[in-house]
């Protein structure tokens, strides 16, 4: 089972390579990918250097062109695909059937991975992309239980990649317009969720408040730890109760189910977080490499080391982790 790690910069890419990632995924510096954040991602020169560096160390590079092309910007998506092919990346991660069609037609040698943004949650959906675009792998959305992942994997010949660790999308990826409803910018079209430019922090009557396009997402009394106002992780009022009505600030961590994922035949596990620092990438990659190696060497003796858990908890949103949808009771 491959370890696929994120990089939003050249130092992060090198950190992932250094710590033993099997593959590193990156994006261009525009809205063609789902982490279109100011100052993030690699320019052309950095990409060339990064790919050469990774390949020298037998690490693969995947490039995400995984937003949905806006009609007026089509050339940007087309150019991104051409550039990825020219750079000699090991795979292109895409979601938009128009983009996949272009890539499979013009660059048949380019490996295509269906992005999580493609929202394929069942074998029939995977068949569509396989038959039509010859995808070589698919990243499953974080909505399936472990039993469902197993079922999909058993019914499909498309190799499966699943999310292993990182920020948790509560909604099916590619199927959430909450961000554009409040701010006008969405993951599908703009590559952002709850964009930083719409965020405003202030102190109101002794409480720290976070707003997104002036909508109150949460308020914190003294001593409470405050998180980034991703809109699905705020505290809202439902039936007169104030609570995290959609999801708590928490991170996904699947280290406990590595043996099951291997048994199911999952091809790769993915770490979320191209927007995170090189230090984050370094630590998460190191811990996950250790866990996967430990399982490979002695599957029957595998257990999660306390130090791994401690390291990951320290890097998690709200310092807590969950098995998310893999564990049915979370749903």
């Amino acid at each position, binding site marked *: 089972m491959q370890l696929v790690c994120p990089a939003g910069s050249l130092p992060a890419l090198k950190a992932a390579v250094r710590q033993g990632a099997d593959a590193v995924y990156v994006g261009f510096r525009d809205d063609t990918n789902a982490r279109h954040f100011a100052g993030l991602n690699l320019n052309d020169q950095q990409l060339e250097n990064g790919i050469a560096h990774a390949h020298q160390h037998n690490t693969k590079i995947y490039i995400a062109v995984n937003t949905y*092309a806006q009609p007026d910007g089509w050339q940007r998506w087309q150019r991104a695909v051409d550039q990825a092919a020219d750079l000699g990346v090991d795979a292109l991660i895409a979601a938009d059937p128009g983009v996949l069609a272009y890539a499979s037609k013009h660059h048949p040698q380019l490996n295509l991975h269906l992005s999580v943004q493609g929202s394929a949650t069942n074998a029939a959906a995977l068949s569509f992309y396989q038959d039509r675009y010859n995808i070589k792998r698919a990243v499953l959305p974080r909505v399936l239980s472990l039993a469902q992942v197993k079922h999909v994997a058993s019914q499909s010949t498309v190799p499966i990649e699943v999310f292993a660790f990182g920020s948790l999308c509560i909604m099916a990826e590619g199927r959430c317009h*909450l961000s554009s409803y409040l701010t006008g910018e969405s993951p599908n079209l703009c590559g952002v969720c709850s964009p930083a430019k719409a965020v405003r922090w202030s102190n109101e009557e002794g409480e720290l408040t976070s707003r997104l396009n002036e909508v109150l997402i949460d308020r914190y009394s003294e001593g409470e730890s405050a998180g980034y106002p991703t809109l699905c992780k705020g505290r809202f009022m439902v039936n007169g109760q104030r609570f995290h009505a959609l999801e708590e600030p928490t991170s996904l961590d699947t280290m406990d189910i590595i043996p099951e994922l291997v048994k199911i035949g999952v091809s790769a596990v993915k770490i979320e977080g191209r927007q995170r620092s090189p230090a984050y990438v370094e630590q998460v990659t190191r811990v996950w490499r250790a866990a996967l190696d430990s399982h490979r060497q002695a599957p029957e003796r595998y257990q999660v080391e306390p130090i791994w858990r401690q390291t990951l908890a320290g890097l998690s949103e709200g310092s807590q982790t969950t098995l998310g949808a893999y564990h049915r009771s979370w749903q």
Partner: protein
Amino acid sequence: MKLSLGPVLFFWERDTLMQFYAEMAEQPLDVIYLGETVCSKRRSLSLDDWLGLARDLQQQSSAQVVLSGLTLVEAASELSSLKRLCQNGDFLVEANDMSAVHYLAEHKVPFVGGPALNIYNGYTLSEFIACGMMRWSPPVECSAQIIAAALNQLDELGVARPEVEVFAYGHLPLAYSARCFTARSENRPKDDCDLCCIKYEEGIPLLSQEGQALFTINGIQTMSAEVNNLLADFPSLAAAGVDIARLSPRAQGMSEVIAAWHKVRQGEPAPLAVQGCNGYWHSRPGMVSVEEVGLC
């Protein structure tokens, strides 16, 4: 401009659904969508019941009847039920997941591409048209500008346009999750939800801590709190290339909503402003009413 009635997005009792459709059969509608698109546990009507209702409606009304498929398809049972729906042989199907597109394309059956399919540009449109899509209902976050540009792009590609149907009235379906938020709000696990969403005929309002209405909780679906209403924008619908305005069922007053739209399509002037939001249509945040914030 044609008028369509979207699938009922909420969970209603069987009798409520039957009464609702008996009333809808009398309305000046051109298309009626039937079926469960949100949660497979909602079984007031079985697939056979929906098919029976479809046959009845086709006799009682001149409207075209379309069967809408489930959106988030996870379990094997959901997939096999969707396959049966796609192979019903009699009625047009609205695909809301790529699995449905796969089944329909495989059998070379023309279909409607529902708002839950991510089709945002002309190149992608042409892919779906090649698979048999004859009508496109764009994602609800699409603006008039994106729709018009995607259709122009399709013209440039030399591909004939599909019919275009815009989500013109109702709570906007915004997101789908593995988690049931209605069950969560009642502290129930999803597997023991007791179908509690039956109690909320139009979902549960989700407000900010300042009381601002943001979303509507509807099982695994999250909808807009505001009702999206494009009636005041009627003249611009046709200009953007829209053929059909989709009115999404609400618990009360649907006949009045249809009547208001019908008057305008028959030539009465559109109102200058209506209650609700229309931000998406104007390339703004979806929750905005552009008339209210003085954008037009």
